[in-house]
């Protein structure tokens, strides 16, 4: 199962801007159940797709000697839901690029409507050969780099299809009764389908998978404490990945309540492996009746 999401690169201005698209189809497995019982494509994976798009520009600009990895993201604003049959139009702008890091921002739309906006992303660079072979990365880009001004969005789904859902959640949740001090644990297994692509020579837990698990955890906490409310993720912010998480690691996450208002709630997440910080972030949710 692939963890490469960009279906086609539409335009590439080396070191500056890149656009592309991704069709959301029944072969995708990263979904969340919405209140209306529809399935919505996970916002974190939409963010992953945008990050991968930016990374293609970066890798080509640096002649595939370096590859950016997840580092810091200032803010991810979540817009409308994405459903089966939608086409993601992706656009990433590189603000700063050198052999140590890249700074970029970007936006994803469906039919002109914003579904995700990413601001102030900073990715440190690693030598390509520590993550995957140069020739493999070059070949992968060749597959999808087919620039064009003319492209067709996927015309929705005429046939009722039930995509497979890959569950992304913490294995153990403690203390869910106390909204101010929930702790959850993730046992990272080598069998997870994202490891072969992330990365071929160094399998590490993708930041966006961890973020998906944190959002799922927050939804569970909110459903427990506010069962009558309609909960919507509106923003992920102050995201920082400081260490790789490897297969075989046990990742523990402490959830703290930062803000609780009538229509707005903010959680902070601090994840550690063997007591060493690996990831922090904040998640903002809206609460409606």
């Amino acid at each position, binding site marked *: 199962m692939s963890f490469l999401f960009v279906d086609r690169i539409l335009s590439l201005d080396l070191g500056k801007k890149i656009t592309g698209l991704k069709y959301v189809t029944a072969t995708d497995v990263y979904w969340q159940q919405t209140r209306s019982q529809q399935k919505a494509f996970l916002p974190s994976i939409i963010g992953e797709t945008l990050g991968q798009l930016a990374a293609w520009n970066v890798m080509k600009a640096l002649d595939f000697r370096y590859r950016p990895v997840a580092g*810091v993201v200032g803010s991810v604003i979540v817009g409308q839901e994405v459903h089966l049959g939608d086409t993601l139009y992706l656009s990433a702008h590189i603000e700063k690029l050198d052999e140590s890091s890249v700074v970029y921002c970007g936006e994803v739309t469906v039919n002109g409507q914003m579904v995700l906006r990413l601001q102030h992303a*900073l990715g440190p660079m690693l030598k390509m050969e520590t993550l995957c072979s140069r020739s493999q990365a070059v070949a992968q880009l060749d597959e999808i780099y087919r620039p064009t001004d003319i492209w067709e969005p996927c015309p929705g789904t005429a046939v009722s299809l039930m995509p497979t859902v890959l569950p992304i959640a913490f294995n153990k949740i403690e203390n869910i009764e106390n909204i101010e001090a929930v702790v959850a644990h993730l046992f990272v297994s080598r069998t997870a389908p994202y490891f072969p692509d992330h990365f071929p020579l160094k399998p590490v837990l993708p930041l966006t998978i961890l973020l998906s698990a944190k959002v799922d955890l927050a939804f569970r906490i909110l459903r427990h404490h506010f069962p009558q409310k309609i909960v919507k993720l509106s923003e992920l912010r102050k995201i920082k990945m*400081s260490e790789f998480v490897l297969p075989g690691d046990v990742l523990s996450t402490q959830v703290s309540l930062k803000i609780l208002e009538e229509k707005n709630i903010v959680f902070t997440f601090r994840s550690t492996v063997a007591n060493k910080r690996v990831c922090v972030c904040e998640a903002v949710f809206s609460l409606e009746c």
Partner: protein
Amino acid sequence: MNVASVYPKVKAIVADVLVVDEEEVGLKSQLIGDLGAESIDFLDLVFQLEREFDIKIPRGQLEKNARGSLSEAEFEQGGVVTEQGMAALKEYFSEVPETHFKTNLKVNEIPTLFTVETFCKLVVNASQQERSDSAETVA
């Protein structure tokens, strides 16, 4: 612009980047030893300082500043800072107590010396460099 004038903003940014209360951050606070900074935090910190102060801080600038006029061979041998290199470090990081300069300090351990004041000085130097480059361009 001097260390005292930039310190309040630098302090706020350090607290934000390292996710600590501002009260925990002091001018003499060591970023790694006292505040728990990791390597990604230094990247984040430099990025935030560049944005806040509208300056450019080339990667490795602190080490370059500390090395001064010494060549690489004069500064370090086999990844360990030489005696000459240590003298240069002590002169540049004048705000760091003598006791923090351990014997046979490795080059990759230099960030353990960094304090909040170190980054205030970095901002001041980078701002002066920007102004000087602008003046040259105009001339």
